[in-house]
Each structure stands twice: as structure tokens, then as C-alpha cells.
């Protein structure tokens, strides 16, 4: 395991031929729905329903979609916090799908999670020092003094006062609490971080502090991010590549410039056009999608987006479009990709 050698910062990723750090193949994560007096399984919530994804060493892959599309479940499945129903997840060349608990634990040092809610994810009865240092303790790393130093070190790196380690989470503001969450994820010096909506609970002025910090830390610690968020503008700002999810599937994946400038899937086009831009008078043509996201209990046949798609045709109900390469570095799952356009 030499995945996280800090002394060798990785160059910007996604070069041809380079092996991905994380590789996801055919992953499904279903949750049973129980009903009736016997609590029998009456259905499956197909939160993640067949995803293939590569995350290159050193890149930030943005994962964007609306609530219920399965983006957080996918992030947690990749970390194996939720066991996948089927499929394979490879981390740094090791298949972690069926890894035994003790080997998985060792693997976890190299992959960490940053949570959305900086209040709910911090134990209110533990001091910040113990919250951050707990992971070191759990992995049996370092002596007491070294742990102490490591915690102070990482607190300084994320912009917290190391002398505040004896205080409790409620004594910190929202932005600082998110820094505590980031310090806890980084103290093990992992190579891979899943950031699950890390800024969506924060105010605008605090959000920019945390985003800048995440970008800065990535450079300093040579990190690879899976950045999960619903806000496409935020994802666009931090990501090298962006994957768009809809109802348990990736519908489009490409570098962030292509996603922004030349989106090919009608859902990506609509999602982009739905974002209100902070420029008055700059009215763009907007595609307003009708209706709501269908239930992941019973996704539509064929293409899942067809019920809301402005360009759906009969074939979309019959044949599920595969995720195929439609342009260099850009894969799309649509029979009529590129046909829906928005005037700038």
C-alpha cells in the first residue's frame, strides 16, 4: 500500500493510460422496503443502479444531481460504508468489495469522508482534540505525544487555532465546525476524500472560505476528491471532471468545461439552464422540466429521464441508453445526445 505517498505530489490527473485510484464497475446499491404486518420486503429502493466510474489520482471528480438521485449513497458505497448490492469497487488496485473487516479497516486510513452537517457529525460531548485524534487512536497510530502533535498540526493546516483543542464543538461557528470535520478526515493523511455536500449548510461568505480551503488542501496534501454536491456552480468551481447523476445512474460524465459549455445529455442541459445566475438582465432561455423525479422504487422503463425529457421519443421507453463515449473524454447515456440545445 503506497497509495498515499505525500512526498510525491501527483500531476494533474486523467492522463491516458494512468491507472485510476478508484474504479467502480457495475455497482448497485439497493435498500429493501418492508411493509405489511410480517415486515416482508415489498420493494427495493434502487438508490444506485448500475454505475461505472473511474476516479483518477489527483483529480477532483464532481458528482452532481438532485436530491434522491443516489449521489450520497454512491459516495458512501465507494467508501464501503454502505455495502453494495452488486458490482465491484477497486481502490488503488485492490478490490475492496469483499475485503475482510480487518483489512478494510486498514484500507480506511487512506479513504475518508467529510460530512455535510457539521453539527450532527461531531459528538457534542467530545473535545475537538479528541474528535480529531480519535481516528489516530482507532488505528493505533503514534504515541500519545505524537498524536497530540499531529492533531495540532492538522488544526493549523485547516485554519483552526491549535490551542482551541480543549473546547467543545458548540463553541465554534458553522464554518469552524466544518473545518473540524475536515481536520478529522485529514488527520490520517488519506489519499482519497469523499466530500459529501461539504458547503451546502454554510452561508455564502463562509462557503467561500471552506471551498478555498478544500482546494488549497488538495494541493498541499496531493489529495483526490470525490466532491458530491447539488449545486452545479460549486461543483464546476472545484472539479476537474463532473459526473451528472439521475435516478441512480450516471447520465453524463466529462471534464468540467465540456459539461458547462457543451453538455450533451438533455438532463445536464436542463440542470444548467435551471441555475439562477447572479447577473440581472442576463436572461437566458430556460428549459423548465415538467414534473418531479420519479420514485426510485419503480424507475421508468428504458431511459429513466424520458418522463421529463423534452426530446423523448418512443424508443426511449423501450431501450435503456448505455453510457457511451460521444466526444473525447465525454460519455453520455442518451439516444439523442446533443439534440437539445439552449440559446446562450
Amino acid at each position, binding site marked *: 500500500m503506497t497509495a498515499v505517498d505525500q512526498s510525491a505530489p501527483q500531476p494533474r490527473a486523467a492522463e491516458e493510460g494512468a491507472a485510476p485510484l478508484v474504479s467502480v464497475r457495475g455497482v448497485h446499491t439497493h435498500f429493501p422496503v418492508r411493509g405489511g404486518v410480517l415486515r416482508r420486503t415489498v420493494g427495493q429502493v434502487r438508490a444506485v443502479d448500475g454505475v461505472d466510474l473511474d476516479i483518477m489520482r489527483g483529480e477532483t471528480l464532481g458528482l452532481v444531481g*438532485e436530491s434522491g438521485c443516489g449521489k450520497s449513497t454512491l459516495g458512501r458505497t465507494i467508501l464501503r460504508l454502505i455495502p453494495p448490492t452488486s458490482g465491484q469497487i477497486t481502490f488503488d488496485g485492490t478490490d475492496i468489495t469483499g475485503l475482510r473487516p480487518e483489512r478494510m479497516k486498514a484500507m480506511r486510513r487512506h479513504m475518508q469522508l467529510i460530512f455535510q452537517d457539521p453539527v450532527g457529525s461531531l459528538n457534542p460531548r467530545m473535545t475537538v482534540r479528541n474528535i480529531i485524534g480519535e481516528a489516530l487512536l482507532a488505528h493505533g497510530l503514534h504515541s500519545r505525544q505524537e498524536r497530540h502533535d499531529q492533531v495540532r498540526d492538522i488544526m493549523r493546516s485547516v485554519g483552526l487555532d491549535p490551542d482551541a483543542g480543549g473546547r467543545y464543538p458548540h463553541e465554534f461557528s458553522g464554518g469552524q465546525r466544518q473545518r473540524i470535520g475536515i481536520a478529522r478526515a485529514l488527520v490520517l493523511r488519506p489519499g482519497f476524500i469523499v466530500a459529501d455536500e461539504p458547503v451546502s449548510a454554510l*452561508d455564502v461568505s463562509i*462557503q*467561500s472560505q471552506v471551498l478555498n480551503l478544500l482546494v488549497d488542501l488538495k494541493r498541499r496534501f496531493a489529495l483526490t476528491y470525490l466532491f458530491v454536491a447539488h449545486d452545479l*456552480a460549486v461543483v464546476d468551481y472545484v472539479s476537474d471532471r463532473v459526473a451528472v447523476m439521475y435516478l441512480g445512474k450516471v447520465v453524463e460524465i466529462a471534464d468540467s468545461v465540456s459539461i458547462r459549455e457543451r453538455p450533451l445529455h438533455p438532463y445536464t442541459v436542463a*440542470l444548467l439552464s435551471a441555475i439562477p*445566475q*447572479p*447577473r440581472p438582465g442576463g436572461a437566458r432561455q430556460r428549459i423548465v422540466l415538467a414534473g418531479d423525479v420519479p420514485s426510485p422504487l419503480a424507475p421508468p422503463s428504458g431511459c429513466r429521464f424520458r418522463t421529463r425529457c423534452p426530446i423523448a421519443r418512443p424508443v426511449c421507453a423501450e431501450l435503456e441508453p448505455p453510457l457511451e463515449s460521444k466526444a473525447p473524454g465525454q460519455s453520455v447515456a442518451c439516444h439523442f445526445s446533443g439534440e437539445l440545445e439552449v440559446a446562450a
Partner: protein
Amino acid sequence: MTALLDVKNLRTHFHTTSGVYRAVDGVDLTVHAGRTLCVVGESGSGKSVTALSVMGLIDAPGQVQPGSEIVFDGRDLLRLPERQLRSIRGRDITMIFQEPMTSLDPVYTVGYQIAEAVRAHNDVDRKGATERAIELMRLVGIPSPERRIHDYPHQMSGGMRQRVMIAAALSCDPKLLIADEPTTALDVTIQAQILELMKDLRDRLGTAILMITHDLGVVAEMADDVAVMYAGKVVETGSVTDVFNRPQHPYTEALLQSVPVLGMSKEHPLRVIQGMVPSPLNWPTGCRFAPRCTEAFDRCREELPPLFTVDDQRSACWLCETGARGSAGVEEIYR
């Protein structure tokens, strides 16, 4: 332009055991008939309390302080007897909230709840009210309203519930609709639906809107006029194009620069506003933004600046005392 709502020196304080929270502390706002004013600010800036004060929904320990004025259609709401206030509230002024699930009663059908709003202010029988409810649901784009009136709130999606709230709010042709973060809980494609609906209704019915939001994109899309709030005060007001293109208050400028926008260069870090919003228990003396302001000087820390008029804008910054301040607006930021 006639002022439909004129709020002057509104101060709403909360008396608690830990002290007096001066949540709203001297707010001036004007909503013109048929226009949309967006009040924008971060959490704790007092924007929601401002809206609740206008609606007369402040309960103990909160209190609108003497000397505040809320003039609606020529009458000061703070001086009206409760009975007259009730005939205005819910009829001439209505309000929708952020989370439609908590504002709707889970044990009544949505049709019943809209009809109830209709009957509260109109002299109609139950049948007439139900018909009006169906009509309103059609107006806000709920498909097959004859069937959906029998739905309970939990049977509807978030976007549909917000449409129900809007239908109930429009039941008496209000002159002013107050919307407190109406799309914050919704997904972006559903938000787009609701914003389009609100714009369409505004154009068709001529309702003035006072909208509270933290999202600058929503402001740019919806507003005619904007008021930027910080620490219980309005720091800048003006037309949305003026304020966004040449913000006069350093806080407005910093706020505009700290939001990531699609297609923004990744080479430059986002603008950061250092520190955090001060506590309403203990606002700083002088300009309340001074401790976080990069342009603050001695006077800012000592004396609270009033709203200075700069062309068609107003800005509460000492730098604007003698006229416009050079600033970077959205046009410079985004290209």
C-alpha cells in the same frame, strides 16, 4: 411609483434571559405596487424577522419597538387595532414560507386548506370555496386539480406543496405577497418551476412581492429592487441592476465576489469575507461590518453610517458620503 409598503426604522428585539437580541435594528424598506423587492442577506442578518414583523407575526419574547413604522397602503399597521389588522393580514398581505410541509396541516386535505383560506376572507359557501380552490390550483399549475384537492400534504412532492401554499396565499388577490425563502428547500429544477410560476403570476395579477432569500442568483432573476441586509440593518438598496453592477457597500461587493458562478476561472480563489457575522446580543459599535471590512478606517469603528444616497442607490458606508465609490460589479467579476 407609489409605495405600497413603507417600513421605517423597524426595530424588532427579543428579550431573553441572556440579553436583548436586536435582530432587526433600524430597517428602512419600500415595496412599490406591482414590483418585487428582494431582501438578501446571510443567516442572522434579520431578514426573516423583518418579514414576520410586517406580517405582525412576532410573538413574545419578541417585540416590535416603539418608534417603528410599517405603513401599508397609507395605514400604519402597528397602530391598527387587531380586528382591522386581521382583515389586512391574509387578504391584502399574504405570506409563504420556506418549508411547505410545516406550514400545511397534515390532517386536512390540501383542497380543504385552500378553501379555508378562501372562506376566511370572502363571503362564499363551501361549494363556492371548493370551486375557487380548484381554480387556484389550476392557476398555480397543479395537474388535474379536481382529483388533487383530495390529497393530503404528505401525498405531494415538495414542489407541489409549495404550489399549494402559493394557491392559498393568492386566494384573496393580495396586493402584497411575502415569500420567505420559498425555493430554498427545493431542488434546482423544481426551484426553476416555482420561480417561473411566481414571475408569471406577478405579471398576470400585478401582485407586489417582498421576497426574502440568501441566493444572489434568485435575486438577479426575480427582483426589480434589492435590499442587502447585514447585522439587523439594510446596508444597501437600489434597483437590482445598479446594485449588482456597481455595488456601493463593501459588504455587497464582497458577497457578490464570494459566490462561485458557472464558468468562473479556477485560477483565482474565491473572495473570502474574514470572520463571521457578529452576535445580535452585542452588535459592534460604529459600522457593523467594519470588523470584517477590508476598507474600514477609524471613523467606521466609531460612528454608525446612515444610508447615503448615491445616484439612484443608497448605501450605508462612510466611503459613500461624498458620492459613488469605485467598485467591481458582476460584469467585471464574471468576465
